[in-house]
């Protein structure tokens, strides 16, 4: 992917790239750290159809939504030869009892047999998190296990 980085003197930096549908998609990062999501118009590629200001939390939530399915799809592909093994994404919601607690506290593996193979946070995949890894609301867990185990794990993460 060819991401074009353009300095905007006095304002910040624009990073964007052309998608296959022909438009440009990217972000404008202001000097004060504020982010704007930009999407170009279809009839005028120089102009922007939308220029949406995002808070830090919103930007990282969007990054997780976009990034996690890719990771899940990739892992599913790798486990294709093992019938019965599923890869799913489970979110840590603000209401979750594990918001602010560690992976070890969930005892997920001993209770359900499910493994957390990665955590998506702020658009970045953190692979193989250790038991002392602390969850925060907005994290997206990528888990591997049986369908039954994953369904139990989902219940545990939503309500203890």
């Amino acid at each position, binding site marked *: 992917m060819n991401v074009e980085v*353009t*300095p*905007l003197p*006095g304002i910040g930096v*624009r990073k964007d790239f052309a998608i296959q549908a022909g438009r*440009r998609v990217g972000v404008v990062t202001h*000097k004060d750290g504020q982010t704007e999501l930009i999407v170009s118009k279809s009839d005028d590629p*120089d102009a922007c159809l939308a*220029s949406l200001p995002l808070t830090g939390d919103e930007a990282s939530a969007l990054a997780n939504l976009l990034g996690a399915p890719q990771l899940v799809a990739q892992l599913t592909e790798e486990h294709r030869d093992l019938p019965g093994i599923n890869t799913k994404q489970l979110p840590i919601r603000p209401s979750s009892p594990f918001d602010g607690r560690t992976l070890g506290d969930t005892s997920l593996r001993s209770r359900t047999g499910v493994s957390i193979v990665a955590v998506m946070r702020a658009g970045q995949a953190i692979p193989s998190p250790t038991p002392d890894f602390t969850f925060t609301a907005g994290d997206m867990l990528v888990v591997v296990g049986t369908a039954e185990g994953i369904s139990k794990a989902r219940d545990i993460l939503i309500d203890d």
Partner: protein
Amino acid sequence: MRSFSRLACSGVWPARSACPPIPLYLVGGLAFGQGGAIELDNIHEFTEIASEIGVVLLLLLLGLEYSAAELVTGLRRSWMAGVVDIVLNCTPGVVIALLLGWGPVGAIVMAGVTYISSSGIVAKVLSDLGRLGNRETPVVLSVLVFEDLAMAVYLPILTAVLAGVSFLGGLTAIGIALIVITVVLVGALRYGRFVSALVDSPDREVFLLKVLGAALLVAGIASAMQVSAAVGAFLLGIAISGSTAENAARILEPLRDLFAAMFFVVFGLNTDPRTIPPVLGAALILAVVASATKVATGWWAARQQGVARMGQARAGAALIARGEFSIVIAGLGAASGAVPPDLVALATAYVLLMAVIGPIAARTVEPIARAVFIRSRLTPART
């Protein structure tokens, strides 16, 4: 203190209307003081100092917005557009000054007044209209960067000319200005962190006093060297970089707004509103011509960067707005007493027009350009 309540009124309204406050400050100032509804006595000493601080802060904050690296890359990328900009937009000012018989000094002042776009208004309009992600926006911004750097060379020349120095003295001023700018740019690129460390402080109050003190000190030294106080502050702003610059900008912004507002009001107070109607015709012609030359500049600059027709039109319209610097230049002229009052009146009327026309043009350019493009498509193609 009536002017301040009036000032407060002028400040509140634009916050909601997205119209730049500069014309309102000017009108607020014109309404009072010299030739206005109420003469204000005994405020001269205070307002003169306040408006001087206003100019220093205006330029300091402008310098803080840019890092030296940004300026150097901007200069490298846009110098051709910058030269086109100077040629096209100084010419209307020079021509009208010579036509009205204001001589070479008047021509130099008017060249600056018609040349420089208001980076404050332009950046605000681009951000309000959601055009920061547009392809033509970096072109517009780099033209503004070039203009701001050009000011660092122009203001010392202006100061020297207004002080009535000889040709040799003028050349010396240009020489000193160029050397100082080069030293500051190179210094800020290499050793910017030392300057930042010098003024930085974890304590908010100490930090504020250090930055403000440094700005006034550098401005004073620059003024004593005949390089213009404003340029000294601008160069200091460039030299301060990184997080120090961001913090300084955040702390100084309300002070800048306050003192810059005073500067505009004082400029208005010192201008007799009765001098404006006689020059209104000339101001209107100048506004039309200077809008056209800015559109042409933006058009050309955007075209060079491979932006399509609609983007070229947007870039041109975005650059029309003139504001704070035209008033700074006219204010320097007025303070020196070397220019006729008519020139100050013309500059005031011109800025009042351009600060309003600019944002409106930027908003309405797309439908207008579309109509023009469609019409040009309907007319039979030349074969």
